[in-house]
């Protein structure tokens, strides 16, 4: 059912008729229910089991989480309870007595490499640190946006993970296929590794293949191959309608689709075909970067409009029709697009889904300060984890958080192994550059754990911020490799 805060019975009836809604639309005339059950944001979705238990309660719609909540609800009804895990192995404290600990890090992305380096810097050689990744290379993902407009080549934005071994970190180039929390071990295709501490930093898996026609019609903004495809398509583009589409929530780097639109706009202008082109952004969000204060979203909308980029918020994507080159929203509204750049749906990697670590959100719930899961010595950081903010929304998925969380987790583990009191806590700090094209960028940063909503400082856009982002990229690729 819909509940309309500050609506009347009459206005709800009208609403139901106008949108032809087949479910109840109930007024909450004085907003009392709204105040009591939500954080003041719409939409707010609450899923209640028949026994009255709330299994889902979120603001911005989180598809993965909602799917997981529905499964939990159905499991409740069929009586199939998720099995509890209990460690039968030695606990980390007991392992410590052997004076040699093994820390296994799953994923050599942002969180994984920062955690590995920080641990190596603070632990002696008797302690082993493993990084497992199925990819031979670390890819600096935010530079995909520059690759897409020809400002970077592939070799400039990736580095071989094998180089970690030079720093005393053991790199396993293999796919993780099982996380066995009970026996405290991890299996890859070729090996089994047991751990005293486990850091899950496997990121978010993007699944364009879950959308029929994606391969025929869209370029994936979030993959190397997709960015290459966008570059070729932009080179061949002589005019028409470009669409940047967010297919579902949540997605990593909330600024990326907007940055893509700005960069494409600037590229087409430089190419001399801007006056023959339209650029549109379609997204299910109600405003850009919805976790940030509304003023930041409003300033991005303003900048889009100043560059003639058309913004379509609350576009709940449903399907693609490659034969007519249309994208279709849940309300049936269809838009024809000549060049489609899309953010694919995200989900937790398969191996995490079968590990028992996932919560109802569809991601791994962790303590906001320590990043610990409910299993002893097991941490989750970065995109694969989820932290609920005071506003009821989730901490955005971004490299800056994976980075800062990795530093905190490495300190806790090192302190614990060395028998020191650990006091490292993640405080919700983060920042973000927003590429605006023409060698300019904006910047915002602050504290995302601030109650009731993140407190961010937004800087005036300019060239200096763009160069700041370039300098960070150079530092990153040199610092860790």
């Amino acid at each position, binding site marked *: 059912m819909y509940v309309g805060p500050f609506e009347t019975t009459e206005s709800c009836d009208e609403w139901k008729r106008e949108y032809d809604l087949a479910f109840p639309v109930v007024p909450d005339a004085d907003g009392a229910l709204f105040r009591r059950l939500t954080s003041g*944001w719409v939409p707010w979705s609450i899923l209640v089991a028949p026994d009255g*238990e709330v299994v889902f309660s979120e603001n911005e719609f989180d598809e993965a989480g909602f799917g997981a909540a529905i499964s939990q609800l159905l499991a409740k009804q069929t009586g199939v309870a998720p099995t509890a895990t209990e460690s039968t192995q030695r606990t980390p404290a007991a392992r410590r007595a052997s004076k040699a600990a093994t820390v296994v890090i799953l994923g050599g992305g942002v969180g994984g490499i920062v955690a590995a380096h920080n641990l190596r810097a603070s632990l002696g050689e008797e302690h082993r640190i493993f990084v497992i990744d199925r990819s031979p290379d670390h890819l600096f993902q935010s530079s995909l946006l520059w690759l897409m407009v020809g400002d970077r080549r592939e070799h400039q934005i990736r580095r071989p993970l094998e180089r970690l071994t030079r720093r005393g970190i053991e790199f396993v180039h293999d796919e993780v296929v099982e996380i066995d929390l009970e026996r405290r071990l991890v299996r890859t295709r070729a090996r089994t590794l047991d751990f005293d501490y486990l850091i899950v930093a496997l990121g978010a898996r993007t699944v364009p293949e879950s959308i029929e026609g994606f391969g025929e019609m869209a370029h994936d903004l979030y993959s190397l191959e997709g960015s290459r495809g966008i570059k070729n398509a932009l080179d061949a583009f002589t005019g028409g309608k470009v669409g940047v589409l967010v297919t579902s929530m949540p997605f990593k780097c909330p600024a990326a689709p907007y940055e893509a639109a700005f960069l494409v706009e600037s590229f087409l202008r430089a190419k001399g075909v801007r006056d023959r082109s339209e650029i549109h952004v379609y997204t299910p969000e109600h405003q850009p970067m919805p976790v940030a204060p509304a003023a930041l979203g409003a300033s991005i909308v303003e900048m889009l409009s100043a560059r003639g980029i058309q913004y379509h918020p609350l576009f709940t994507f449903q399907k693609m029709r490659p034969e007519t080159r249309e994208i279709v929203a849940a309300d049936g509204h269809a838009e024809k697009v000549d060049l489609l750049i899309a953010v694919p749906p995200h989900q937790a990697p398969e191996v995490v889904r079968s590990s028992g670590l996932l919560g109802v959100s569809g991601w791994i719930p962790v303590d906001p300060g320590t990043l610990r899961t409910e299993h002893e010595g097991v941490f989750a950081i970065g995109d694969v984890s989820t932290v609920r903010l005071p506003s009821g929304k989730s901490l955005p998925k971004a490299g800056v958080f994976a980075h800062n969380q990795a530093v905190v987790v490495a300190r806790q583990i090192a302190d614990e192994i060395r028998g020191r009191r650990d006091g490292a806590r993640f405080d919700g700090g983060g920042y973000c550059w927003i590429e605006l094209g023409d060698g300019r960028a904006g910047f915002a940063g602050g504290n995302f754990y601030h109650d009731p909503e993140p407190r961010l400082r937004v800087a005036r856009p300019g060239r200096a911020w763009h160069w700041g982002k370039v300098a960070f990229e150079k530092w990153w690729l040199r610092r860790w490799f």
Partner: protein
Amino acid sequence: MKVLDESGKGVAAGSKLDLASLGLPVAGRRGTLVVFWKRQ
């Protein structure tokens, strides 16, 4: 979209809600989805 500033944190997953006593219809045997929403 933020509609009210003075609200709390939202009902937490895991807590109990008696929809009928809140005056809300109980939709079905499998569970009920309540969406607070503003007409666009």
